[in-house]
């Protein structure tokens, strides 16, 4: 019995999603908005405007699932990431790592892309029992919205109340965005992050361009 349990643990698939150099092929990764070529657009973009958009490319996205009543799960996260998992609608920042509350037993952690695989392995060895860590780095991306009118773009895009009183800096919600959904995080008084699925990123990007026109859009690479 214990043998089969041990072999089950061994067989958990852990995949480093970073591309590896094979033969003479140079490794490369394409972010979900690769095709939009923000580098070229930013070169022709206005210098100033009401809203600035930037894709934060190729970060490591780890989904953690576990119970807040499981001391070993919490201490494993603390040991590896150095942060306490946040409560409902809150975020927790520690150096280059940030954890967002997603649901009562689920958090999304953003880390530098090169570190995701190692951090996943470290957390797996720091925990036991019931927990899950899934590397979804290739499946979603982060779009930063900032500027004086960023809040106006959000008001057009989500039914959630983004007023200061209801949405202070540090808060995070998953809600309707345009006709899809996004994790919406307020990173500063005038800056917001949207975390969207890869397959919806083009739609969100097109939506944002249109929604930003009236305020003046600045594209950054």
């Amino acid at each position: 019995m214990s043998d089969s349990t041990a072999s089950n643990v061994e067989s958990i698939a852990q995949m480093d999603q970073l591309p590896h150099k094979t033969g003479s092929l140079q490794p490369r990764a394409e972010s979900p908005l690769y095709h939009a070529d923000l580098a070229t657009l930013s070169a022709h973009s206005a210098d100033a405007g009401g809203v600035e958009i930037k894709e934060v490319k190729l970060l490591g996205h780890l989904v953690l699932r576990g119970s807040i009543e499981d001391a070993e799960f919490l201490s494993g996260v603390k040991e590896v990431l150095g942060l306490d998992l946040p409560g409902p609608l809150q975020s927790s920042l520690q150096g280059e790592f940030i954890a967002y509350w997603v649901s009562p037993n689920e958090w999304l952690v953003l880390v530098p892309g090169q570190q995701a695989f190692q951090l996943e392995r470290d957390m797996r060895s720091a925990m036991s029992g019931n927990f899950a860590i899934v590397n979804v780095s290739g499946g979603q991306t982060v779009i930063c919205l900032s500027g004086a009118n960023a809040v106006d773009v959000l008001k057009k895009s989500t039914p959630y109340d983004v007023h200061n009183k209801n949405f202070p800096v540090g808060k995070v919600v998953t809600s309707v965005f345009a006709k899809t959904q996004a994790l919406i995080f307020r990173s500063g008084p005038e800056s917001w992050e949207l975390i969207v699925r890869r397959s919806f990123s083009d739609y969100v990007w097109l939506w944002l361009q249109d929604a930003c026109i009236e305020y003046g859009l600045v594209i950054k690479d």
Partner: protein
Amino acid sequence: MFHIYCPHCEDHREEEEFHASGEAHIPRPLDPQSCSDEEWGEYLYFRKNPRGLHHELWVHAVGCRKFFNITRDTVTYEIKEVYKVGEKPSVTSSEKNQ
């Protein structure tokens, strides 16, 4: 604007983030193999359709994606209470067949 309180997010959210998932408190038969066709059919297909108080299962689909229960008046659409799965409703009808 119609807001529903999610007991997991502890926040009022717009109705479009939610989906109704039918009648609440329907226990799966403990031993399906020994159910008669009628008992199994009742479990799978037959639901109350009351005029008045109704205990319903809802899911915060575009949000925390968790299920919870709502006691709702099907005549006025008024939500009487929201409670987590596993908890009992505090608002119940005195009528028979409820």
